[in-house]
């Protein structure tokens, strides 16, 4: 069977499963809709968190990104996993004990202020929308490449599906579809990785093959071979970096704090029954994420070696079929500058003749390794699962912000349970439409704003939540001024150095040599300092708020959820 038929079959089966689950898990109450009734087992929540967290970027782009960055790619690996340690140790258990539905709930109650609540809502909406636009686009791109429909049609299909299960099932529907989506995406990621590892290094485990010798009998280690190829072609060595230590440090920290501060990730820990389950499910989530995250750098190195071996100095007339296939999509570009009919792939931009989009490293991997057609179709289904699961989690945060944090908590506190549920569904529907709009008309700065989402979360939510738990003396004046200052500073830096507003600037002008991707770390420190100083200069929080802080520090008495 050809690739397209296989893709229709495998994607069709996976979509039917998602829809089936959505119908089975229809939400009956706002508690179901917001936190899946609070009765999700820690294991299932770990699976759902992993799918929620790993987006189209993790699935499609990350391995390719690392294969072009070498050692420097470690910032993403450490940054996007280390955040779970912060979540498990500093946030999840306490927020679970607090036991409300959303992050703005915590900020608003802990800082006894609707201003703080509103600031949190605005931050949550900005962070989630910047993120979700990229996901819908990812759905469209996967459809376009593997099913040969226009990108926009792909976005409509993705919208329709997310609409169905997010609006119908809320968090309950999303949780169980995410469990299924994790299974699909990890299977789709590991099958080609294992095949390629066996081909290249003879090892069944990509993580081991990564550090093993080549299977060609030469006895050379894969990474030594790769370093050698890089030196020959003028690239910096694969296993050493080119970014400054300061910048690597700052980016890693911004990604970690951003991960721990992302509302769609935090809210997943409200869905488990007990405090100890919140701790445990963060552990499970990281195990499930680590399976993909320890495989990605191996894929990066394998793909890089395969690519250089295949194309470097090869005659253009005899390139393999996948090369021509991906050339048609525009993701590989060859320009014979010196007219010798051979491909020169080198670091020197003047001489280099080949441009490769990082995304094809994962998407074309099965073709490069000559794997069967069903594996290629599986990768398409996996990419869709990754994008859809993340999109759904983000949309829920947006809809909850509207129905719960704005309407129920501020505009109309007397709203009935039924009325609130209707508003939650309206919010989810509206969010799907807006996300779809951004998917079809992607703003030019999407790539820039995904990094912005982490910086924003790191500079706003992360300090406010941590201080709310660990500093009993922190008051509303401190938290609000810290959040506002942190987020504005971050926005200013990103706009200036990423989008060239306010006079723009080059990397030479960066403050402390830190790139916009890493600036979340600086903005977060500014937030912490300002919060601390302002809070000590103003009145301490009221007695009842200090009691809340006392009570969230001890597990017993967390509100019960109902199992399903």
């Amino acid at each position, binding site marked *: 069977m050809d690739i397209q038929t296989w893709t229709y079959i495998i994607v069709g089966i996976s979509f039917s499963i998602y829809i089936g689950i959505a119908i089975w898990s229809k939400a009956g109450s706002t508690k179901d809709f917001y936190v899946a009734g609070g009765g999700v087992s820690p294991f299932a929540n770990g699976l759902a968190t992993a799918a929620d967290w790993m987006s189209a970027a993790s699935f499609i782009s990350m391995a390719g990104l*690392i294969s072009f960055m070498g*050692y420097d*790619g*470690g910032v993403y*690996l*450490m940054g996007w*996993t*280390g955040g*779970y*340690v912060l979540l*498990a*140790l*500093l946030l999840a*258990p306490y927020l679970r004990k607090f036991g409300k539905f959303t992050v703005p709930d915590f900020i608003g109650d802990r800082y006894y202020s609707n201003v703080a609540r509103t600031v949190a809502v605005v931050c949550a909406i900005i962070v989630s929308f910047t993120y979700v636009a990229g996901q819908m686009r990812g759905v469209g791109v996967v459809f376009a490449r593997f099913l040969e429909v226009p990108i926009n049609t792909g976005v409509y299909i993705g919208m329709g599906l997310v609409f169905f299960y997010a609006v119908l099932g809320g968090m309950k529907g999303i949780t169980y579809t995410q469990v299924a989506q994790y299974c699909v995406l990890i299977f789709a990621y590991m099958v080609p990785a294992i095949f390629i590892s066996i081909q290249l290094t003879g090892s069944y485990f990509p*993580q081991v093959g*990564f*550090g*093993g*010798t080549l299977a060609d009998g030469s006895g050379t*280690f*894969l*990474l*030594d071979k790769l370093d050698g190829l890089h030196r020959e072609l003028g690239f910096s060595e694969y*296993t*050493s*970096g080119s970014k400054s*230590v300061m910048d*690597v*440090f700052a980016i*890693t*920290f911004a990604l970690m704090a951003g991960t721990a501060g992302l509302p769609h990730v935090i809210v997943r820990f409200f869905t488990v029954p*007990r*405090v*100890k389950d919140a*701790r*445990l499910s*963060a*552990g499970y989530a*990281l*195990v499930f994420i*680590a399976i993909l*995250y*320890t495989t990605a*750098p191996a894929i990066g190195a394998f793909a890089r070696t395969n690519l250089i071996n295949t194309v470097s100095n090869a005659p253009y007339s005899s390139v393999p079929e996948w090369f021509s296939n991906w050339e048609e999509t525009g993701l590989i570009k060859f320009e014979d500058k010196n007219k010798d009919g051979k491909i020169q792939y080198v670091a020197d931009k003047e001489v280099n003749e080949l441009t490769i989009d990082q995304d094809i490293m994962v998407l074309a991997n099965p073709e490069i390794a000559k794997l069967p057609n069903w594996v290629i179709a599986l990768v398409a289904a996996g990419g869709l699962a990754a994008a859809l699961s993340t999109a759904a989690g983000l949309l829920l945060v947006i809809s909850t912000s509207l129905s719960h944090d704005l309407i129920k908590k501020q505009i109309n506190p007397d709203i009935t349970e039924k009325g609130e549920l209707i508003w939650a569904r309206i919010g989810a529907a509206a969010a799907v439409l807006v996300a779809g709009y951004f998917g079809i008309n992607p703003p030019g700065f999407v790539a820039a704003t995904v990094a912005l989402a982490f910086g924003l979360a790191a500079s706003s939510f992360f300090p406010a939540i941590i201080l709310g738990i660990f500093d009993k003396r922190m008051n509303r004046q401190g938290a609000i001024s810290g959040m506002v200052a942190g987020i504005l500073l971050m926005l200013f830096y990103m706009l200036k150095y990423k989008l060239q507003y306010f006079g723009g600037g080059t990397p030479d002008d960066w403050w402390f040599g830190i790139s916009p991707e890493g600036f979340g770390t600086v903005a977060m420190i500014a937030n912490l300092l300002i919060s601390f100083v302002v809070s000590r200069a103003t009145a301490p929080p009221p007695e009842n708020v200090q009691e809340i802080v*006392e009570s969230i*520090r*001890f*597990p*017993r*008495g*967390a509100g019960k959820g109902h199992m399903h």
Partner: protein
Amino acid sequence: MTQEDKMKAYWKQNLKYLAVLLSIWFIVSYGFGILLVDQLNAIRIGGFKLGFWFAQQGSIYGFVVIIFVYVWLMNKLDKKFDVHED
């Protein structure tokens, strides 16, 4: 010990665990993977330079272990101070 003293002792022990575990978290990632990467790269394990391995593999394994150790320690502590859930 009064109830209040007990709670204080519980929280203090929790903070102690956090300090130790977060130090390990810092060392395996920022320490071995970033600050000391050049020194560690002089050591090799199979095909891996050690610093590179920590940046792209080892730190992640370390993170997983840290969380499960924390879960285990806290479950014990909750029982000891009788603040555990059923």
